[in-house]
């Protein structure tokens, strides 16, 4: 089979982010435009997975130059074809502009957002066509599986994973090699390998991007795990909200089966492995491993007490190894390149890299993969480009509903599993939401707790009743009915729930509340005692907005956005706000181009 050679490859991101920004239209336009110019034989269009820089989507990269075009519109395609692809002139106006210097940067490798990243799990994402097994293999894909199955014994593989220092990327941080060893040592006629892709944390989407952008890597990681622990069957549990990930994984599995990479006697090693996809049905608690297994068995997805751990009694009572998507994505690299190379990156107890989903009030939102030990400041300001509209950094929330809020004095904290725990947050699955001074911390705590409360499965009392009572208190505080003693009561509830809940969901549910009380107690106090929300978010506790006449330029945009017509314009074209009508929603202040509107 001889592959056709093209003079240029145009990569278009078709991850969920870019598709919803219109990348499919860009692709069709490009196809038409190439056809019109008789270029289809010279230039190949490749649909790739996520590049991580969703904020700037739709994204296109032109190889061999590696030129990065972003925020494309349909109308821009013609210019790229005419100028760049025909005449070799880069279209400057469509390049990425450095937020501070406004300088355009042609090559994506030079963009700060990418420069500081170190990509292992995401190495192929955005570089290869996820629906082509050939492209994966051409990038050394399945090399690690070949090495493992033909040159290594299960014990050697486990030793390698153990000495790499890889810890579970799903959040808990349990050493992966140790987990494998437990399952390996069990004597059983049947064992299972499960990949937990029930990524439910609001604000995290790395698992989705890996499955959409590089599904074969997960398959390869699971084959290696199956061989190591002695399992011949695996399940990938994907949440149903990720249709594209399911579709691509399905295709990847059939392609791997066709090439004999899944099925019987893989690499003539005598090892058999079968992989199934299991679609979730919308229950956050199914991300907890025992609940996930109950769900695969066709039951209500409720957790069970551990021990026994899944390694002893897992799926249908058989020894089972469960890891998260990102954990499996690191395995091929560790086996192919060796544990030493992997463990040379990171901190003493947290090796390798971690993918974070950087979102919130930040300029460059998207997926970033950085070495463990990178500081929060580097992530927020160097990679993330700082806060939007020059706002002031207030806190960063890590670990989703199980994590906590970290204030600005910890910006220089090197990120790893243990350092985050020490400050009352946690790694979680790697969501990072940046908050500025217009975010109310009490409201944020209430938001997370209302999430965990509604997702509580109801099996154990501390979680079912406790989170409900905590939420009632928080609702009261946000409505201006907070009482003396509420903070203490929240803390007491929180500690009890942490100690007594059955599973990880309940045990970590109080974290957002406890960490905001720890670092932002003053905000709670001003809600309770001063009946005032300093960030102006809780509308019952917010003062009316006032327009500073000196700064106002009279553009009138505030009039248009005010939902209650509280902005008045007098005969002299002066604007003011009627504080009897104002509901403190803040829409005018957000819209104001000169920041002339402040809360009074």
């Amino acid at each position, binding site marked *: 089979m001889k592959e056709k050679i093209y003079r240029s490859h145009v990569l278009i991101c078709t991850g969920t982010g870019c598709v919803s*920004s219109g990348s499919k239209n860009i692709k069709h336009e490009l196809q038409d435009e190439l056809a019109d110019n008789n270029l289809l034989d010279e230039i190949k269009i490749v649909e790739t997975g996520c590049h991580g820089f969703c904020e700037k989507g739709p994204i296109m990269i032109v190889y061999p130059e590696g030129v990065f075009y972003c925020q494309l519109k349909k109308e821009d395609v013609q210019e790229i074809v005419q100028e760049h692809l025909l005449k070799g002139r880069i279209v400057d106006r469509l390049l990425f502009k450095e937020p501070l210097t406004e300088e355009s940067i042609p090559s994506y490798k030079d963009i700060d957002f990418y420069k500081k990243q170190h990509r292992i799990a995401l190495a192929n994402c955005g570089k290869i066509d996820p629906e082509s097994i050939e492209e994966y293999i051409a990038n050394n894909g399945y090399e690690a599986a070949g090495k493992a199955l033909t040159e290594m014994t299960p014990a050697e593989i486990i030793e390698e994973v153990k000495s790499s220092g890889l810890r579970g990327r799903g959040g808990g941080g349990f050493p992966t090699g140790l987990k494998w060893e437990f399952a390996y040592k069990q004597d059983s006629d049947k064992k299972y390998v499960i990949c937990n892709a029930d990524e439910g*944390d609001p604000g995290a989407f790395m698992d989705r991007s890996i499955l959409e952008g590089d599904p074969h890597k997960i398959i390869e990681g699971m084959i290696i795990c199956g061989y190591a622990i002695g399992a011949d069957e695996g399940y990938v549990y994907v949440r149903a909200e990720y249709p594209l990930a399911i579709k691509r994984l399905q295709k990847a599995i059939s392609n791997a089966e066709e090439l004999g990479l899944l099925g019987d006697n893989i690499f003539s090693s005598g090892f058999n492995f079968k992989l199934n996809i299991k679609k979730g049905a919308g229950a*956050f608690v199914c991300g907890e491993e025992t609940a996930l297994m109950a769900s695969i068995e066709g039951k209500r997805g409720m957790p069970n007490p551990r021990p026994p751990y899944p390694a002893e009694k897992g799926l249908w009572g058989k020894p089972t190894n469960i890891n998260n998507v990102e954990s499996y994505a690191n395995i091929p690299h560790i086996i192919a390149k060796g544990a030493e190379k992997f463990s040379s990156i990171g901190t003493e107890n947290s090796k390798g890299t971690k993918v974070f989903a950087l979102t919130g009030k930040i300029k460059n939102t998207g997926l970033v993969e950085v070495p463990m030990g990178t500081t929060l400041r580097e992530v927020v300001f160097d990679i993330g480009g700082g806060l939007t509209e020059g706002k002031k950094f207030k806190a960063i929330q890590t670990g989703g509903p199980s994590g906590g809020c970290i204030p600005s004095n910890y910006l220089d904290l090197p990120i790893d599993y243990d350092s985050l725990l020490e400050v009352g947050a946690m790694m979680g699955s790697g969501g990072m939401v940046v908050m500025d001074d217009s975010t109310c911390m009490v409201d*944020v705590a209430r938001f997370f707790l209302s999430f965990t409360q509604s997702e509580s499965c109801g099996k154990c009392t501390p979680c079912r009743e406790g989170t409900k009572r905590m939420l009632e208190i928080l609702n009261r505080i946000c409505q201006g009915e907070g009482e003396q003693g509420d903070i203490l009561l929240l803390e007491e509830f929180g500690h009890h729930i942490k100690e007594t809940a059955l599973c990880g969901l309940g045990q970590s549910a109080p974290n957002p509340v406890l960490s905001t009380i720890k670092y932002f107690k003053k905000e709670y106090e001003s809600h309770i005692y001063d009946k005032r929300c300093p960030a102006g978010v809780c509308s019952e506790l917010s003062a009316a907005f006032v327009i500073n006449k000196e700064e106002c330029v009279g553009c009138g945009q505030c009039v248009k956005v005010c939902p209650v017509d509280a902005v008045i314009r007098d005969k002299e074209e002066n604007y003011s706000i009627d504080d009897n009508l104002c509901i403190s929603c803040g829409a005018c202040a957000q819209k104001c181009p000169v920041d002339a509107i402040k809360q009074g």
Partner: protein
Amino acid sequence: MVCNCTYEESTKYLEPLQEILKNYQTIEKNLVPILQDVQDEYGYLPRDILSEIATYLDLSLSQVFGVVTFYSQFHLKPRGENIIRVCTGTACHVRGGSEVLEQIQEELNIKNGQTTDDLSFTLETVACIGACGLAPVIMINDETYGRMTAEKVLDVLGEYIE
């Protein structure tokens, strides 16, 4: 049978279900996939169908009902032709997702979780769609719409209103 239909009518009604069941062995682990397929076919999970499934898998109706009510994706009532999902995840929350939700509620005159009387729209909130880079985000059916505002969402809805 709860309904008053004739034998022919009920056979016709159950035909798609029988087609789906053919693809599955009678083991409990197939309950969730069967329910997913059935809901795709019927739009929701009618009670009569649930008893048929229970019989097929040799489970009690209460067991099936327990699973249906546990997972948020399953619905016991008919749903609108277009499903609007408003993300209320963290990133969308801090970037103004609730205003978008309010706007939709006002425009369609339904609350979160309800269906319009003409069965054209069902409005739901979801915890995270996983497109946080584009927050605030809504989904209508399988299409994702990012960077929403209270004004922009009206244009998007307009595409679906006949």
